[in-house]
């Protein structure tokens, strides 16, 4: 094989790798994207319009097969009979955990990565979030603030297409929004009742969502037609993903090489130049190892995978992993904590319904530790939610049978119900870590991870408070039949892994500088969840995207100045 040499190497084609590919190629760099998994053909693989009766188990999944091959992945609700193929085979992709610290590592190895099945909720951070570590004396201070990020959020939001309602909240800044879908009549009423009771402190607002409500003809994307199952793909490219948006944009430049079935094993380091020269890759089909060379390397394989690559890249100079002079590589693993909340019945508007299947609906921004300090915990959480009429599914556990039972299920919709489901911040903790398991390799012979992560006391308190405050809100709105939700989810299952190569101001305590450069190897950039020094409580993907665009801009300018 002739030497494969490019200007830039991007490892991973998911939500941040897609952005690296787009930005680097549009700035003139010949770029190769190395994706471990298979290519995806939307015409074949997208199944959002398949009806349940077209599937053998009507959407309930081929359980014995899933139990055997995807015992971890199936914990994610999107890993179902339709979309299970977008999640990895757990037997091929093993890892270990201590017995008392389960961690659910949910992965998608294919072109597009997890951007195919992601949740699409996108929020900016505020300085309250960036200043939190310094204020609380936790972890390390972020080397950046809102002002560093704001133009880059704008840059990515305009391309992504983010629907949202401007609320003017200092702690959840508005973005470059397109018109959102309206809230339904029950959600609107809930909003008004809560404004009355809480004076705007607890607010139901439209979800900020990477789903188009207007056509984007220049990018070949149509507005969403509300079929309702984004995790199955989207033939009209209405929701944002690498496949639907960034990779096609990169391809248009003529400078992109996309190589699926390319499992990156490690980064090649030149100790004299103190630079990376490329990566070692295993062809997933032939199991042959080969090398790819480039002037810069963007690691966008996901927080745990990107750190795993560096841990597998140890050299005499860096015996515990490339770029690990701080000793923090692989440490400070974070996720969010989710699963506290409530469901209730809304005794209103039985003569009203909604039409169209929104993939996501409403959001309650953080209200804890915003204006006043909570005595028991730091940081906070937000709620994702929706109000809906239950429909025929209520019949699976409804009293009665016979003609009237049937008529009710067909002709009525049941009451309005509303669910609020909390997503809270997780604090960084050095003890939460990944390391290479000395006894385990994956199907391609790459040393696999041992993951040691547990939620701490602050997270548990946030979780408990989610249940309390969701119940309070339903009581305040006059809801009935309030049922608390306490889903005891293991870490990992929120699928917001972060922190394995945190940014910081000091190379002694952080892996990356404020430009997402590895302090020790400045032509290696990490712009996925690995770079995060804290999690805030907002869903993180748009921040990875903005961080990637910002780092790509810096990298190309530094290359042009011959600094890399």
């Amino acid at each position, binding site marked *: 094989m002739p030497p494969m040499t490019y200007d830039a190497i991007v490892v991973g084609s998911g939500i941040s790798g897609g952005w690296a590919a787009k930005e680097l190629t549009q700035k003139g760099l010949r770029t190769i994207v190395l994706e471990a998994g298979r290519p995806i053909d939307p015409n074949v693989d997208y199944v959002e*319009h398949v*009806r*349940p*009766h077209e599937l*053998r*188990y*009507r*959407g*309930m999944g*081929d359980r*014995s097969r899933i139990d055997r091959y995807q*015992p971890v992945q199936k914990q994610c*609700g999107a890993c*179902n009979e339709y979309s299970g193929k977008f999640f990895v085979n*757990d*037997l*091929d992709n*093993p*890892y270990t*955990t201590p017995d008392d610290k*389960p961690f*659910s590592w949910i992965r998608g190895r294919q072109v597009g990565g997890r951007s195919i099945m992601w949740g699409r909720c996108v929020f900016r951070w505020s300085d309250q979030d960036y200043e939190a570590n310094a204020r609380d004396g936790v972890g390390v201070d972020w080397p950046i603030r809102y002002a560093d990020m704001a133009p880059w959020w704008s840059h990515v939001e305009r391309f992504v297409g983010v629907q949202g309602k401007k609320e003017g909240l200092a702690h959840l800044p508005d973005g470059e929004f397109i018109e959102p*879908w*309206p*809230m*339904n*009549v029950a959600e*609107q009423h809930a909003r008004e009742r809560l404004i009355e009771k809480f004076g705007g402190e607890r607010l139901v607002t439209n979800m900020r969502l990477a789903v188009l409500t207007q056509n984007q003809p220049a990018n070949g994307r149509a507005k969403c*037609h*509300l*079929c309702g199952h984004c995790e199955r793909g989207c033939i009209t490219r209405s929701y944002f993903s690498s496949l639907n948006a960034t990779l096609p944009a990169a391809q248009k430049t003529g400078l992109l090489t996309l190589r699926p079935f390319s499992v990156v094993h490690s980064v090649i380091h030149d100790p004299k130049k103190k630079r990376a020269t490329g990566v070692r890759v295993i062809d997933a089909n032939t199991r042959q190892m080969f090398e790819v060379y480039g002037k810069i390397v963007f690691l966008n394989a996901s927080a745990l995978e990107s750190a795993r690559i560096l841990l597998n890249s140890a050299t005499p100079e860096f015996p515990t992993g490339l770029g690990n002079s701080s000793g923090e590589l692989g440490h400070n693993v974070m996720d969010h904590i989710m699963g506290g909340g409530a*469901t209730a019945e809304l005794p209103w508007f039985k*003569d*009203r*319904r*909604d*039409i169209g299947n929104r993939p996501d609906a409403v959001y309650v921004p953080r209200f804890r530790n915003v204006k006043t300090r909570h005595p028991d915990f730091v940081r906070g959480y937000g709620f994702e939610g929706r109000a809906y009429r239950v429909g*025929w*599914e209520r*019949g*699976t*556990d409804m*009293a*009665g*049978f*016979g*003609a*009237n039972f*049937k008529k*009710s*299920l*067909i*002709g*009525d*919709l049941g009451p309005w119900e509303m669910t609020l*489901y909390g997503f809270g911040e997780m604090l960084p903790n050095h003890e939460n870590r990944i390391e290479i398991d000395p006894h385990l*390799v*994956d*199907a391609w012979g790459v040393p696999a991870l041992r993951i040691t992560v547990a939620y701490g006391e602050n997270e548990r308190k946030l979780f408990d408070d989610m249940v309390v405050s969701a119940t309070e809100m339903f009581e305040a709105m006059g809801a009935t039949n309030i049922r608390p939700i306490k889903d005891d989810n*293991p870490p990992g299952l929120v699928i917001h892994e972060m922190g394995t190569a945190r940014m910081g101001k000091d190379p002694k305590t952080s892996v990356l500088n404020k430009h997402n450069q590895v302090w020790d190897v400045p032509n290696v950039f990490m712009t996925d969840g690995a770079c995060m020094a804290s999690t805030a409580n907002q869903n993180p993907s748009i921040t990875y995207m903005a961080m990637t665009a910002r780092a790509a801009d810096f990298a190309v300018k530094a290359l042009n100045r011959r600094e890399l």
Partner: protein
Amino acid sequence: MHRRELVAALGAAITVPFLPRSAQAAIDIGERLAGQPDVPFRTLNAKQQAIVSQIAEMIIPRTDTPGALDAKVPEFIDLMLTEWATDEERGKFLAGLDQVDTRSIAYAASQPDASVTTPPQRFGELTGAQKAGLVNEFDTVRGDNSAIGITFGRLKALTVYGYFTSKVVQEQILKEPMFFDGYKGNVPFTPAV
């Protein structure tokens, strides 16, 4: 959230403890199953089929629209019992089902019908009123831990799910569109019940 609740109602454990295994590549036996034509009953014997069919049709009878039998609900239940349920779930379902005839005999004795001279020996021999009364008894213990409660809870959930996800109901009754021109959140609605 809904699907999760539904899966729970149908008897699947959502989370299992994760036991990592060494890597071995082998996959794609699942596609072998997709798209096969209807298969004959493989789990329910003739007696059990008769009970499942009669109760499913009582839950969702044919009216001016198709009923559970038209939607091939018993076949769907047999498929799920055969290929989807665990051995334990299947065993519990069948154990409860096998009590139905005994319960029928007892129910007929307690609620005799003067016009019937031979005491019924099975569910199918009850009068319509007796069947309805007995199924109503089952419905009150639906989902509890008794043998009948477990079986009837699952039978009802599978009947409703199997009916509403069937081709005939999806295409002739629900007719839910896949394409909407925007979301409408405040549309007048009059229940047809």
